[in-house]
């Protein structure tokens, strides 16, 4: 499917529509007020201090009404919260299984109306960023990630993940100057320093800017790190290394790397991630895959 023709709602609209609504009686203050009403009503109903029978009847009614309201609000909120969590978990699974259209459909359904939990909203927006990147909507990814980084107080690990997504979008969008700045910033973050994500970003930057020698420096270490942290994504390192060797006119090494890359991941998926690898198809031979997985 042509990514530009996908019915993706505008990011700004999703950001506005998904803002959690201010809910009366749902915060701690509301709970406190309702609890006090229930407790006060209960005391009055029980005759503390001495209360007229009519007043006691009214107190019972108020107590019951407040207790029912409290239980009802909590029940509704809990149900909405659980439904939101289940949907988010489903979206995460769709992303892992690369079922992008289903992930997008569920994200749109979730974000087109006010969400219950601000934390779940941030999670949903991060998933949306990943889906937008899959559909090559890099400007939207950058806009969304900038929103997350500037408007929401993220912990270091989460901020690091968002910054990595933003940097990849900048690289894919050929905004190399800004990407280089973002990479330097990531390099200063403790959470990113030894991460496979940063290794891949730096490797891609070097390949994209024609710094093939730098890309191949410490290749074994790069392979090890990405393999240990990201498993099959080690194919990305092999694929980018093949492109670097090809750039240096070392076809034997490029072939060896290309073979490894095509063994560990489908070529189509690798080219979707790094369009630069398209140049290698036809030039080098892929590892022969069995018919079941072709």
């Amino acid at each position: 499917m042509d990514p530009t023709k996908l019915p993706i709602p505008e990011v700004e609209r999703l950001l506005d529509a998904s803002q959690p609504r201010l809910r009366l009686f749902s915060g701690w203050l509301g709970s406190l007020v309702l609890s006090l009403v229930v407790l006060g009503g209960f005391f009055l109903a029980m005759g503390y201090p001495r209360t007229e029978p009519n007043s006691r009847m009214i107190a019972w009614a108020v107590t019951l009404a407040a207790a029912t309201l409290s239980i009802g609000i909590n029940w509704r909120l809990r149900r909405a919260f659980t439904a939101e969590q289940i949907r988010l978990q489903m979206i995460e699974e769709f992303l892992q299984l690369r079922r992008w259209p289903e992930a997008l459909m569920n994200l749109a359904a979730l974000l087109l109306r006010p969400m219950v939990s601000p934390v779940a909203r941030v999670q949903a927006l991060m998933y949306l960023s990943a889906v937008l990147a899959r559909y090559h909507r890099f400007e939207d990814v950058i806009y969304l990630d900038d929103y997350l980084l500037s408007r929401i107080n993220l912990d270091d690990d989460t901020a690091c993940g968002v910054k990595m997504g933003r940097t990849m979008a900048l690289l894919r969008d050929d905004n190399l100057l800004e990407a280089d700045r973002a990479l330097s910033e990531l390099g200063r973050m403790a959470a990113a320093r030894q991460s496979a994500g940063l290794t891949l970003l730096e490797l891609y930057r070097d390949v994209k800017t024609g710094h093939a020698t730098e890309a191949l420096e410490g290749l074994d270490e790069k392979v090890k790190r990405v393999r240990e942290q990201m498993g099959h994504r080690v194919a990305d390192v092999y694929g980018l290394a093949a492109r670097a060797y090809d750039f240096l006119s070392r076809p034997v090494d490029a072939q060896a790397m290309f073979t490894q890359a095509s063994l560990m991941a489908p070529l189509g998926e690798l080219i979707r991630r790094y369009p630069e690898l398209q140049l290698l198809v036809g030039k080098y031979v892929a590892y022969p895959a069995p018919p079941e997985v072709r």
Partner: protein
Amino acid sequence: MTAAAVVSRFRRDLTLAWLLRSGMVALVVAWVLLSDTLHWDVDPMVAIMVFLGLWIVLVHRSRRATMVATAASNLIAAGQFDAAEKQLDFALRSFSVLTAAKLIGLHHLARLRHAQHNWREAALLCQALLSQRLGRLQPLSRPSRLMLADSMLRLGDVQGAYTAMVDLYDVRLPLGELLALQLLQLDYLARISAWAAMLHNIAARIQLAELMPPARSARAQALLALAAAKTGRTDLRDWLVARAARLAERQEIVSDHPTLAAWYV
């Protein structure tokens, strides 16, 4: 603490907690209903308030134990087993009026023993947990069954592993648990030499294996390669072996699996 001692203490504490809860409710009801008949001078409202206060204190203590047990989960994930052991020891020794605190503590202790490769104790703890009515903690039964099945397979009890796994086929599992179940299923099928069944729906199995952490992914693909070898599919075997070799070392792939260890080079 040995697993047997923990289980014995766990069962005793559950009984005590049930007796305490029932006793408190019975006392309050008796006080309200019989105070006039028995000429007790204390106002029933005071009795309700006293018991309510006592209940809040007990629940608070239980919640603390639950929090300590839950915090141990992060320590296990970080590989800090000694610290996790201390936390769980505290959570399981302290008296708790809520059964949830004990159940969560027991579950995480089983996880700890499993992470320590103490398969026998992990199995014992999982069995103790699964023999209880879990109520709203029912979701704990899934990871417990997976741990039990894995421990049984490592101990060589194939029938026990099947019994632990079989109930999981009827429930919708989250992806993480589905991946764990797929690896256990492959391990089990390899042990009973069901090679054709292992290769059924192979494309989906490979896709799931790719989502696993590297060592598990390598083991799953090595098991599939073994099945391919046994059914004469050399192309598939070579492809899977080459992938497994690029994900993990031999020792990680074949540990506790005699058939795989004998075959995988």
